[in-house]
């Protein structure tokens, strides 16, 4: 699959990887990234819905969870 993707898509993947590397200060190899990606894709929970519920997104209340920010 990786060989079939376009230059733009490869660039996107590299940029998202770069973001992770900046945040964590760690390098990640292609193999590691692909392995993590497989885990992500194969995560059963993503496939448990057989019916589409017509939801395009979860609600705003879910996007802004109640943070534990007593100190704020």
């Amino acid at each position: 699959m990786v060989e079939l993707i376009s230059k733009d898509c490869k660039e996107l993947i590299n940029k998202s990887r770069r973001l992770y590397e900046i945040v964590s200060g760690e390098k990640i190899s292609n193999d590691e990234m692909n392995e993590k990606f497989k885990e992500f894709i194969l995560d059963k929970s993503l496939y448990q819905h057989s019916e589409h519920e017509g939801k395009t997104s979860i609600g705003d209340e879910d996007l802004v969870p109640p943070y534990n920010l007593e100190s704020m």
Partner: protein
Amino acid sequence: MLKESILEGVAEKIYGYAISIRNIEASLEHFGLNLEGSALVNFRDAIFHYQTLYLTEDLEIINENKAAIEEHLERGSKDILIYFSDILRKSITLFLNDTKINKSKENRILLIALCNDFANFNIDLRKSHGRFEIKNLSKRFDEIIIIVQNLILLLETEQKTKVFNSCVKKFVRVRPQTQLT
């Protein structure tokens, strides 16, 4: 032939989306945070439309599902980038208020400027709308990489980084994640 080329184009978009979301998830995991639900829900829904698209020969249904996939990917990527940048912006605010660490006046000003950069990034992202395009998402990554890079430079020392990371950790959800079952 038309259907095949649409399938290929859409599959690449889903692939690019999924792998970049996975990398944002890894970035959040670094701070002990989970991926925000919308990115996964929209991924799941995009896959559902892909299955429908794959199985049909009706051109109208093909076009409908292609548009639906792009909408889900657009929404999911916007939501996760907004969530990620918002957490970092709020963490900078907490870090600025933390009295354990001495910050020079210049350092404080630069951190406040970064807060504004994150806020502007968020507003710009919220205001934008349209079809999901890999190039557009790439551009967003360019923008956020620069802001995050500046943040890392400003944190300078290991001690400051440690305190900042503890600020981010305060955003760990206090309730279970959205269930996808």
